[in-house]
């Protein structure tokens, strides 16, 4: 009994997303992963068996497992991001399930923003289509560290190695254009279960790992930037009790890098410097801490630090800028109005901003740049932004946490766009 517990205890967390066109087999694949890893509960299974029967079909439609809300069920479509969970003795998994049609770009970007890995489904009969290119582009835009191409429905092409090799070659040619290299390719049949959790006996020519093997073993500890210490202050703790009269703890999460007691730190945007005095956890104090821990820091000097400030190690300075380029993904049904001020939430800072120019929009199917004068839902574009107070940021490619932001419409309070900073403008 204690053996079970220990194994589960030391597993890591892997977040992944599945991308594919309608009918490539996403739902079947997720259902298969849950089913073969024994993560489907009996009541869920009996409920989807009932539903399958109600719809006049036989057996169990595994794709129903990942079906969402009532309204969508009635319309027979899924239009949003849903999260699924399963665990094996090695790892805990969170799947961001993002089916969808026209809104696909927006859903995929949302699901991808927290993913360590993307599974791109390709129907073996169709090969690499425009949609596969689009999904791959989006995965690379959001900077998902690991990509797996699942060549599905191999059973419908006689499990042919030739077909598989050709698809891999086509895909690699395209991925090269995007500067993507570490891609894994797996032939499979989600429907029959070959190479998902079990190897099956039809793909003996394939020497690589099963999908589950890969998910359990891919190394993800380098997915966050381990070099640059970035600490946005979330909350200043001042208990002002007798015992803790002068206590000032800066609470936050280490977004990247690591920190030790005694490290020289710079507070931005003020530029004042000090040293780390204590690293406090609920359990007691620590000598060092690393991303993504949530901690409380105290410093040697009495400085005026508040929410929105960023602590960095002296010498590892990010940009402090009021004008920059970013890739925007427009999420709202209401188009961008470049005459309006929006709010940008970046780390723990919220500032007013305007879009001062649209450099180009990307056609996600051809990757061609186009000139446009506004942005609509699902558009991806490089824009120039001006902000009222400086942001303290890094290039998104270098650091996701300090390179990402959301755009909020001040009137509706809706989140209307997601942004990735690419360059500061001097």
């Amino acid at each position, binding site marked *: 009994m204690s053996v079970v517990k220990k194994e589960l205890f030391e597993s890591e967390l892997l977040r992944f997303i599945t991308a594919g066109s309608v009918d490539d087999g996403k739902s079947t694949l997720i259902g298969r992963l849950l089913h073969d890893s024994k993560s489907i509960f009996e009541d869920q299974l009996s409920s989807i068996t009932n539903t399958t029967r109600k719809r006049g079909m036989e057996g169990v439609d595994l794709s129903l497992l990942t079906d969402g*809300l009532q309204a969508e069920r009635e319309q027979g479509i899924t239009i949003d991001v849903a999260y699924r969970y399963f665990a094996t003795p090695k790892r805990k998994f969170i799947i961001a399930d993002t089916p969808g049609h026209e809104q696909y770009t927006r859903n995929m970007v949302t699901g991808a923003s927290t993913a360590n890995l993307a599974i791109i489904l390709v129907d073996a009969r169709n090969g690499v289509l425009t949609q596969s290119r689009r999904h791959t582009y989006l995965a690379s835009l959001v900077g998902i560290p690991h990509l797996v191409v699942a060549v599905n429905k191999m059973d419908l092409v006689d499990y042919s190695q030739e077909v598989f090799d050709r698809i891999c070659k086509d895909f690699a040619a395209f991925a090269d254009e995007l500067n993507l290299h570490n891609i894994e390719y797996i032939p499979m049949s989600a429907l029959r279960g070959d190479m998902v959790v079990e190897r099956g006996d039809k793909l003996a020519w394939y020497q690589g790992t099963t999908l589950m093997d890969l998910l359990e073993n891919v190394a993800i500890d380098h997915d966050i930037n381990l070099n640059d210490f970035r600490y946005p202050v979330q909350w200043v*703790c001042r208990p002002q009790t007798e015992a803790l009269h002068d206590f000032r703890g800066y609470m936050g999460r280490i977004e990247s890098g690591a920190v030790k007691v005694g490290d020289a730190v710079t507070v931005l945007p003020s530029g004042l410097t000090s040293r780390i005095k204590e690293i406090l956890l609920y359990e007691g104090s620590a000598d060092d801490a690393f991303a993504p821990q949530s901690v409380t820091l105290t410093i040697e000097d009495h400085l005026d630090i508040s929410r929105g400030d960023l602590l960095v190690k002296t010498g590892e300075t990010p940009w402090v800028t009021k004008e920059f380029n970013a890739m925007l993904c427009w999420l709202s049904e209401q188009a961008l109005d470049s005459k309006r001020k929006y709010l940008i939430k970046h780390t723990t800072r919220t500032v007013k901003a305007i879009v001062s120019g649209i450099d180009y929009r990307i056609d996600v199917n051809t990757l061609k740049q186009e000139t446009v004068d506004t942005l609509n839902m699902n558009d991806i574009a490089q824009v120039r932004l001006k902000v009222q107070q400086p942001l303290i940021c890094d290039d998104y490619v270098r650091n996701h946490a300090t390179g990402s932001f959301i755009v909020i419409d001040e009137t509706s309070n809706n989140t209307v766009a997601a942004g990735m900073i690419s360059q500061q403008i001097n």
Partner: protein
Amino acid sequence: MSNHPFTHLDALESEAIHIMREVAAECANPALLFSGGKDSIVLLRLAEKAFRPGRFPFPLVHIDTEHNFPEVIEFRDRRAKQLGERLIVSSMEDSIKKGKVVLRSPTQSRNAFQSVTLLDTIAEYEFDACIGGARRDEEKARAKERIFSFRDEFGQWDPKNQRPELWDIYNTRTHPGENIRVFPISNWTELDVWEYIDREQLEVPKIYFAHLRDVIRRDAGLLPVSHLVQPREEERAEKVMVRFRTVGDMSCTCPVESAAACVEEIIAETAITRITERGATRMDDQTSDASMELRKKEGYF
């Protein structure tokens, strides 16, 4: 510290602490919903980790159906006192007296009406954010729930009108009268919760552990006998070794047969269990595939 592996529980914990601090910093008047159940017990430990040595920047709020298990209420009061934090108890009895809740019978399940009292409490104290212990793995309708889940001025949840949530940058903004439900343990499963309770050595009400109880077998479930639930003519009460997987309204919260007498044994059982938490323990969600979703739209947690 650096040799210590960063486990999935560490990752989930850090995420939840980050969420709670965002609420404290950006919402004007938040509250934490504390029922005395295991999920909200975990929330309290996370709040300690997020804010000590300071006090919690929010009160604890319990929506009391007055159909709760006495062990849970005793535990609720004791835990709030231990922590030295303010506890607000809003009683459904008041909503009934005011005529806002009309029950068909005094023993009817009150789960469905909790939303009325909750919305009244939110209005009375002008809370703009309520931190709750719901998890996405609980039920299908929750799988798409945001961590910051926006409610309109009628307290309603519109599945079509939720804000996209990217990275971990949360949009906490509301207009006056609107509010947000915040679920810091969205990404936890039932097993994660028990592992965390074990790791943190958290006390939970005794009814979570196996005990002998008078129950009735009804609709393929076990119903605990109490002043609210008595055997019908054709039924017979029997003593069965059971434990509860959730604690809620006594009239519809069903225990499961189990011999798990400590947290470790519950973990072992949960790791191999074949039925979802809600499927096993809540009569009120079984009526239809979409009943949870309907209740959520009405303002339920």
